[in-house]
C-alpha cells in the first residue's frame, strides 16, 4: 500500500506543479497592468506603487512565482485590495462554506446513487426499475441551474417550507443549518448521483453476469449474499474512482449552485473576485481548488487500490 502511494505521489505532485505554473501564467496573461487594475481608476500613484511592491510585480517572473509559492506555503496571502479584508480570511470562510456544501452533496450522491444503482440492478419489479431509469435520466438531463430554479419554485415559492437561499453554518445552528443546506446540496448532487447510480447499476449487472457469480450460485449462496458479498465488492472499485471524479465536478458545480442559492462559498468569492478583477485572490483560489481536486484524486486511487487486491499487489 505504501509502495503504491509512493508510486502515485510523483505524478500528482507533477500535475500540481504544472497547474501552479498555469495559474500563475493566467495572471500574467491578463491585459494591462494588474496593479493599476487592482487599485482602480481613482487610486493615487502611491497606492498603485504599494500594490505593485506587495505583489512584487517589478521583480522578474521566476522570483514572482517563487514568492507567490512561499506566501501560499506560509499562509500569508496579504490583503484583498478589491474586496477588502485579509485574503486568507476570505478564503478560509469560503472554504468552510464550500466544504460544507460539497460534503452535504457527497452524502446525497452516495445515498441516492447507491440506491439508484442497487435498485436498478436488482429490482425484479418493473415499476421500480422503470422509476429508477426515469429518475436517473431526468437527473442527468436537467442542468443544475434548472433543477435549482425548480427546487426553489417548489419548496420555497409554492410550499414555503425551505429558505430559497443563504447559509447558516451547520456547526453553529445544526437545525437551521440543515434547512439552508438541503436544497443546494440536493441540487448539486443530482447529476452526480445519477451518473454514479447508472455506473453502479452497470457494474453490478456486469459482475452478476461473471463466471465467479455463477460459481457462487452453483454453490447455493443466497441472492442477497451474492449481491452484497460477491458482486458489489467487484463493482465498487471503479465506482470509487468515479466518485473521486464526481467530487471534482461537485467542486466545480458548487460555483454555480452557490450563485443560485446565494451560498457564501469559494464559488461566490471567485465570482466576486473576478468581477472586481482581484486577480491575486483569483490566483490563490484557483490553485487551492486544483489542489483539493488533485488530493481527492489521490485519495480515490488509494481507496481503489485498497478495495482491489490485484492493484495492491502489482
Amino acid at each position: 500500500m505504501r509502495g503504491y502511494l509512493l508510486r502515485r505521489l510523483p505524478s500528482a505532485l507533477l500535475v500540481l506543479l504544472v497547474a501552479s505554473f498555469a495559474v500563475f501564467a493566467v495572471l500574467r496573461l491578463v491585459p494591462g497592468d494588474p496593479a493599476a487594475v487592482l487599485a482602480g481608476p481613482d487610486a493615487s500613484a502611491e497606492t498603485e506603487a504599494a500594490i505593485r511592491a506587495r505583489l512584487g510585480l517589478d521583480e522578474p517572473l521566476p522570483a514572482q512565482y517563487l514568492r507567490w509559492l512561499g506566501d501560499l506555503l506560509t499562509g500569508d496571502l496579504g490583503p484583498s485590495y478589491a474586496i477588502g479584508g485579509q485574503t486568507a480570511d476570505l478564503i478560509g470562510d469560503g472554504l468552510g462554506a464550500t466544504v460544507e456544501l460539497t460534503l452535504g452533496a457527497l452524502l446525497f450522491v452516495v445515498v441516492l446513487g447507491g440506491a439508484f444503482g442497487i435498485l436498478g440492478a436488482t429490482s425484479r419489479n418493473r415499476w421500480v426499475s422503470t422509476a429508477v431509469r426515469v429518475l436517473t435520466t431526468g437527473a442527468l438531463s436537467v442542468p443544475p441551474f434548472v433543477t435549482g430554479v425548480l427546487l426553489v419554485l417548489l419548496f420555497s415559492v409554492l410550499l414555503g417550507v425551505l429558505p430559497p437561499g443563504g447559509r447558516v453554518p451547520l456547526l453553529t445552528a445544526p437545525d437551521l443549518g440543515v434547512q439552508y443546506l438541503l436544497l443546494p446540496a440536493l441540487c448539486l448532487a443530482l447529476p452526480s448521483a445519477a451518473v454514479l447510480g447508472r455506473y453502479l447499476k452497470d457494474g453490478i449487472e456486469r459482475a452478476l453476469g461473471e463466471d465467479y457469480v455463477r460459481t457462487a450460485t452453483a454453490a447455493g449462496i443466497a441472492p442477497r449474499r451474492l449481491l452484497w458479498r460477491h458482486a458489489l465488492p467487484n463493482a465498487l472499485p471503479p465506482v470509487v474512482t468515479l466518485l473521486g471524479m464526481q467530487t471534482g465536478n461537485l467542486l466545480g458545480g458548487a460555483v454555480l449552485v452557490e450563485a443560485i442559492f446565494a451560498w457564501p462559498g469559494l464559488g461566490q468569492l471567485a465570482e466576486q473576485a473576478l468581477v472586481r478583477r482581484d486577480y491575486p485572490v483569483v490566483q490563490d483560489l484557483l490553485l487551492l481548488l486544483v489542489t483539493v481536486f488533485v488530493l481527492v484524486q489521490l485519495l480515490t486511487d488509494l481507496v481503489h487500490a485498497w478495495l482491489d487486491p490485484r492493484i495492491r499487489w502489482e
Partner: protein
Amino acid sequence: MTAPPLLEVQGLDVGFTTPDGRPLHAVRDVSFTLRRGETLAVVGESGSGKSTTALALLRMLPGTGRITGGSVLLDGEDLATAAEDRLREVRGARIGMIFQDPMTALNPVLSIGRHLDEVLRAHGDRDRTAVNGAGTGTGTSASTDARAGTGTGADGTARRRKSTRPGKATPSGKAARPGKAARRARAVELLRLVGIPDPERRLDDHPHQFSGGQRQRILIAMALAGEPDILLADEPTTALDATVQDQILTLLGELTRTTGTALVLITHNMGVVARACERVLVMYGGTVVEDGPTAEVLARPRHPYTAGLLAAVPRLSAPSGTRLTGIPGTPPDLSLPLAGCAFAARCALTEDRCRTTAPPLAALTDTVRAACLPAAERAEPLPPPPPPARIDRPAPGAVVLAAEGLRKTYRGRGRRAFTALDGVSLTLAAGETLGIVGESGSGKSTLARVLAHAHPSDGGRILLDGKDVTRPGRAELHAVRRRVQMVFQDPYASLNPRMTVGEIVAEPLRAFGTVAPAERAGRVAELLRLVGLDPAAADRHPRSFSGGQRQRVGIARALAPEPSVLICDEPVSALDVSVQAQIVGLLTDLQRDLGLALVFIAHDLAVVRQVSHRIAVMHEGRIVETGAADELCERPRDPYTRALLAAAPEPVPVTAAPVPAAAEAVSA
C-alpha cells in the same frame, strides 16, 4: 446391487430466445439416469447442448434460457419445478458444480479462504441427513451402500475424513452451525484434500496468486465443501494444459472414489471420456444420440455420429503423413425446426426415413442405447473407419526459412521481464511441414510471430532463402511478408469485424499489388474457392460464419500474396474435432498443390504428428527436442517430450476397470 437412481432426467427440453426473437431449441428430449458413485461423461461438440443440459439440471440457465419440458428428479424430487429456495439448498449441498475457465470462475477481490467460507456458511447450518431426508427416506441408506461398494482401497480414507471433519461429524449439539474457526479449519482441510500445498498460509491469498491448475483445484474444493452427492464438471480441463489436465483428472477420479460422489463430466474430448468415466452419453444437436458404458461405446459405437467423432479424434499412434478423418458438413441450426435425425444431413448411412422421423433413444443391448433408426436393426458393428489415408506429398526440397538463436524478451510494466524465446534455431524446407508443440507459455506463439515478422526479435538471425532478413528495411520487409504469411489461432479475433470477407481477402492483394485493381474481385473469388468457400460469401461479414468457415477465410487471406512459407499458429485449436480435420486436410492439400512450406503450431501432439514431417518440442522458450515426427513420438529422448506424450489422453477403449491403487496417495 441396484440402488434406485440418484438422478433421473426425463425428456428434458431447454429453449432460448435469440436476440432477434426466434426460439432456439438447445436441448431436445434428453433422458438419462445417474446412480450413486457413478461417473458419467457427457460428450459432444459445440452446440450439442451438453453444457446447457448441465446448467439446466441446477436451473442455472443464462439469459433467456428456460426449461420447456421434462423433469429432473433428484431422489424423486423434481428440480425442474422446485421452488427457488429449495434449489438453493440443493446447489452446493447435493449437487456441486465446477466450470470450464478457472481464470474467471473465482472472484478476484475475495481471498480463497473467503470463497470456501462462503460455501461452508451457506450449507453449514443445515444438517446433512435432514437435507437428504427431505428428498426421500432412502437417501441416506443408499449413500451408505454406495460408499461401502467403492472397495477397500477407498474405505480407509473415507473413514479418516469423517473423523477429522469438525462440526459436521460431531453428533448434534453445536454441530448445527460451525463457527468461524471450525469453518476455517474445514477450509484448510479441503484445500489439502485437493492438493494445494501449505493451505494454512495460502488461505488468505487471492485468486490471481494461483496458477490455472491450482485455481481449478480450489474450485473443486469449493464444489466439494458441501459434500454433494453429485459433482457436475463442465469442461473442467479444457482451459488447462495437457499435463495439468492429467493431474486434475487424476484428482477428480480419486476424490469421487474416496468420497463416493457421483461425477457428471461434460467434455468435448474423447480422450478425457476414456480416461475418467465409466459411462458416456453422446450428444449432438441438442439430443442424446448414444448412451452406454464407456468401454462398450468407444469400442463399438452404434450411432454413426459417435463413430464419426471417434474416427475424427487424432490418434497419437497414427503415423506422420496420414490424413485426419473428419465429418463433412456443419452442425444443425438449432433455431430451425427439426423433422428427423439431427445428424441426417452429415451421415454417410442416411436413409430416407432418417430425414422425416425423429429416432427414439432405444435400448440396443442391456446397457447401450442409441437414437438411430437403422442402428436398431443393424446386427453387425458399424463399418470401421477407413484406414488412415496416406497424404501423397512430395519430398521436401531445399531450405527456405531458417532461424538461428532467436531471442525475445517481453518487459512487463513492473520489473519482471519474461523471456519468451531463449535461443531458438530451426530450419524449414520447401514443401515441408514443421510441427511445433508446447504448452501455454512455452513461447510457440511468440516464435510464430517473430518468424512472420509481426514482432521483432531481440537477438538471433532469420534467414529467408539464405539471406539475412532479421531486421529488414521497409522495402525488404514488404518483400519478406509477401513470401512468409501467417494463419492465426482465433478465427473470431483475427478477422476485422467491420470488413466483409471479400475486403479482408482483398487487403493483401491491394497491399502487395499482386493483381490489377480491376481483377481483384476475380482473384478474391478464386481464393475463396481455393479454400472451399462459396465466392458469394465475399459480401458478408465474418460474424455470419462458423468458426471453421472463418478459419478458411483466414487461410484465403494468407494465401493472397502467394507466399512460399505459411506459419500456422494453432490453426485448429479453437475448432471442433470434426471440423479440425477439414481445416488440416485443406492445409495439407494446399501444401501439395502450391508447394508451401508449413510451420504448424499446436498443443495437441497427435495432430502435429499426423501433419508434420518433423516436430520440434518447445518448453520455456527453448526447443528441447527436435526430430522426424514418427521417430520423436515413438522414441522420445527428452523427459519433457515423454511427459507430454504421457499426458495426452487417448480415446482408447478401456477394458480393465481403473485401478484404485493410487487412492491413498492423494489424501495422505
